């Protein structure tokens, strides 16, 4: 009877993984060896058929290299910004939030229930030439005719930062929460002033959270296309846009699928790097 229970108990998540992860992944992989038929439909093909690897060969065309470099650069910038903004927020709430800290974290997370696309649209309204920010700047006399903020790489990075900030705040907050507050006191007790204690005690003690947050921000940022689509300009085309265009504009699903597979392999390498670093941290050095 117990076996029956566990079978049923694990059936749901198993099915979930199968339907929402393994199946689409397999379909994407299969599609990447396919071709576009005469009606513009994506057709599957055997990976051993002649030309089945064309899509992969195309993907390594140097013409796409700038997009990849741009994506990684933007994602790294986004990660750095998320850390610079998210760490102080998490730190402030964890250390000084008192009984309200979970409420504060809840309030921070709340906007993220709104669809990312919608939130990015809000940034369009904020950053456009006649948007709220520029109007405020003009009213304050900072500038006479507004500053072009939208359609720039900065706007894209800003959109990404806003979009994924919470993925930095939560793990850093968790790491700060896990930390024994006495450790900070020990730092001060041992003649570290506030800055020294932060740099030599708090920061290194929360590096697991920083690492996790960085991965959680970096991975979706690299593959993002929404921010570049809505906030970007002529020179902010990212790998995510490339893939999206293959599916919805160029109507070349197989090539889009091949790009997706390559992207996933690329991201998996980063992920493995992270997991190994995390494991090294956790394993006591002998």
């Amino acid at each position: 009877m117990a076996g029956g229970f566990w079978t049923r108990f694990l059936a749901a998540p198993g099915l979930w993984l199968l339907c929402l992860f393994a199946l689409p992944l397999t379909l994407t992989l299969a599609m990447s060896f396919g071709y576009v038929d005469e009606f513009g439909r994506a057709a599957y093909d055997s990976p051993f058929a002649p030309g089945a690897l064309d899509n992969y060969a195309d993907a390594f065309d140097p013409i796409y290299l700038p997009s990849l470099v741009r994506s990684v650069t933007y994602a790294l910038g986004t990660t750095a910004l998320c850390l610079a903004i998210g760490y102080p927020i998490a730190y402030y709430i964890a250390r000084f939030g008192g009984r309200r800290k979970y409420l504060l974290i809840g309030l921070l997370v709340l906007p993220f229930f709104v669809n990312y696309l919608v939130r990015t649209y809000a940034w369009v309204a904020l950053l456009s030439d006649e948007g709220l920010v520029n109007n405020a700047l003009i009213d304050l006399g900072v500038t006479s005719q507004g500053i072009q903020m939208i359609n720039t790489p900065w706007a894209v990075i800003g959109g990404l930062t806003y979009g994924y900030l919470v993925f930095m705040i939560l793990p850093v907050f968790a790491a700060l929460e896990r930390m024994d507050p006495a450790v900070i006191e020990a730092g001060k007790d041992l003649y570290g002033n506030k800055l020294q204690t932060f740099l030599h005690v708090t920061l290194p003690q929360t590096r697991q959270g920083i690492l996790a947050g960085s991965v959680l921000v970096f991975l979706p940022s690299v593959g993002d296309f929404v921010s570049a689509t809505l906030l970007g300009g002529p020179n902010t085309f990212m790998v995510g846009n490339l893939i999206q265009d293959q599916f919805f504009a160029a109507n070349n699903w197989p090539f889009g699928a091949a790009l997706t597979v390559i992207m996933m392999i690329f991201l998996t390498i980063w992920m493995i790097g992270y997991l190994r670093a995390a494991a090294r941290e956790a394993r006591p050095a002998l």
Partner: protein
Amino acid sequence: MEIFDQRLNRRQTLQVGAGAVLAAYGLSACGSNDTRGEAKFVKPEIDGDLLIFNWAEYMDPLLKKSFSEKYGVEVNEVNFDNLEGMVIKLRQGGGPYDLIFPSGEYVSRLKLEGLLATFDRDSIPNSKGVNPYYDSPWYDEDSNHSMPYTYYTTGICWRNDLVTDMTGSWNDLTNPAGDGRMFILDDFQEAIGEANLLNGFELNTEDPDQIEQSKETLLEQKEFARGFSTNTVQNLATGAALIQQAWNGDVVNTRNQVSNPEDFSYETCKEGIPVGSDTMAIPNNARSPGTALLFINWILDPENAAQNVAWHGYPQPVEGGEQEFQKLVKEEPSIAVSIEELRDKELEFVFETPEGRQLWAETFVEVKAA
């Protein structure tokens, strides 16, 4: 383009198995009739509630309401945001939808795939008001799979209060007065198309060398661009764009939204302008094809057409619709487009081969990715 050649070779190997289909495509492209299927004709009669699949904000909702009240059926609408997505859902049997709004080019593709229902245009009385140009459009020669919804031109909209020295050429996209405030439509056909025209090529050229040259043209234009975007109304109304490659209907809408409509001019370029048509068609798997056909008739009704044009800003090639559009654009005649222009220029986007389409699409991605 070595890669492209490889692709062609691969296609050739495939052609062995897909010969019949290719032949059908080839015949169609040469101007012959579609010979596929012996589908029976849809009759204009109420056979159930209606589900419409359309672009967002592309039809006066009151027309759905009045139709619903008159015929006692429910009219529901869902939206797509690009034609590719529409086709994908259609292929998967989504909806099932009763009425779709493909462009001319997509009508030809969907027809070839056998995804469209056939009807006799004479069975709906308001088809008599449709401009004779659409008696036999290139994409639906017998005019028995689609009825025209709107038509449009692609040109350049510009701020006449801030930009001078416009020359009436596609070269105006690189007018220094619009440097950094210019948008190119994020649409591979429109982008490659204007570059082809500017270079003096056939609009629909599929010659790889010419396309390569047009790519260089686009890369030069990109230096002046603030982005690739189809959010024309937003770009113009917020002042982000001083110069924007635009569909004429969007210019009408922009002028309706701003307090200074007189500052927005539209020019149709001397090298030629692409013109296009959106249509109404009934998917093969529609649940209520009869109701859908009745609804097409409803949209083609002169009064309804006028009401609709006033709402969405695009000309409809049907009695009532054309007159209303002329009223809308009388202060800025450059926005107007006549059926005669369509007939004379015949600058509609048509692909000779699927490879050509692929080449265009990939070239545009390369321009954006560079």
